[in-house]
């Protein structure tokens, strides 16, 4: 992915790439949900994350793509695997079963999907023909440290708090 051509080229990427990436991502996501082995699910989750990252690339958001790979495919996926390991009990092959909502949940999901799709297709989007600016990362930085500095800092604090909180919650309580 590194060393791609100059700006604006992504728009030229063949629709085929999109279809493939989309297909893989969806399949991976389905696998996450449907497999009964939790470890497998976790691994397929990584695949789905990477698929999303590629989608970002196609959308010309390479910084986000990078973040996606690092944070999701890297950190979060690993965290989840750790979680799986630490809470393992019984047969790992039977570790990821459905509950009673398998059918009904599915129906609701499909209904939701249908609704969203209908709404999406019915809406007339105000598509802008503008070109994506060249220095996206620079712009992002300017925005984050300028206009959005307060949310940015709050996000930082949130992370810290979450970190501390996670440690405290997960820490073994000694009686």
């Amino acid at each position: 992915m590194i060393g791609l051509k100059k700006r604006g080229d992504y728009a030229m990427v063949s629709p085929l790439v999109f279809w493939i990436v989309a297909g893989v991502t969806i399949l991976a996501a389905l696998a996450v949900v449907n497999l009964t082995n939790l470890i497998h699910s976790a691994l397929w989750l990584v695949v789905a994350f990477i698929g999303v990252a590629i989608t970002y690339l196609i959308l010309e958001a390479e910084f986000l793509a990078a973040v996606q790979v690092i944070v999701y495919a890297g950190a979060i996926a690993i965290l989840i695997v750790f979680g799986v390991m630490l809470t393992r009990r019984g047969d790992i092959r039977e570790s990821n079963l459905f509950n009673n909502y398998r059918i009904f949940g599915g129906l609701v999901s499909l209904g939701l999907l249908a609704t969203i799709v209908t709404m999406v297709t019915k809406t007339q989007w105000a598509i802008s023909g503008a070109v994506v600016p060249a220095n996206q990362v620079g712009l992002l930085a300017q925005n984050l440290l300028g206009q959005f500095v307060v949310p940015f800092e709050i996000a930082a604090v949130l992370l810290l708090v979450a970190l501390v909180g996670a440690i405290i919650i997960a820490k073994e309580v000694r009686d």
Partner: protein
Amino acid sequence: MITLNHYLILAAILFCIGFYGAIAKKNAVAVLMGIELMLNSVNINLVAFNRFLSPGEMTGQIFAIMVIVVAAAEVAVGLALVLNIYRQRLTTDVNDLDWLKW
């Protein structure tokens, strides 16, 4: 030609799959995974809107970044909770976790 709708529908599909996972799985960790999928699909939406509707501004991407941050925090805390619950109850089955009811 890939239009905005394609991305939105992709996101919708991912969202619904994630939702299905969050709803229909027993294991708490699997539920978390479903939620992650949902968050990702939202991010796709944000980025796609940013790209197609106002490419000159970075607002959508910044939102996406915030979501990622929150998602990271959420996973950390969520997993910590799952761990703790597992320690207390020796289970990760969300169906057993109905203490909200008194």
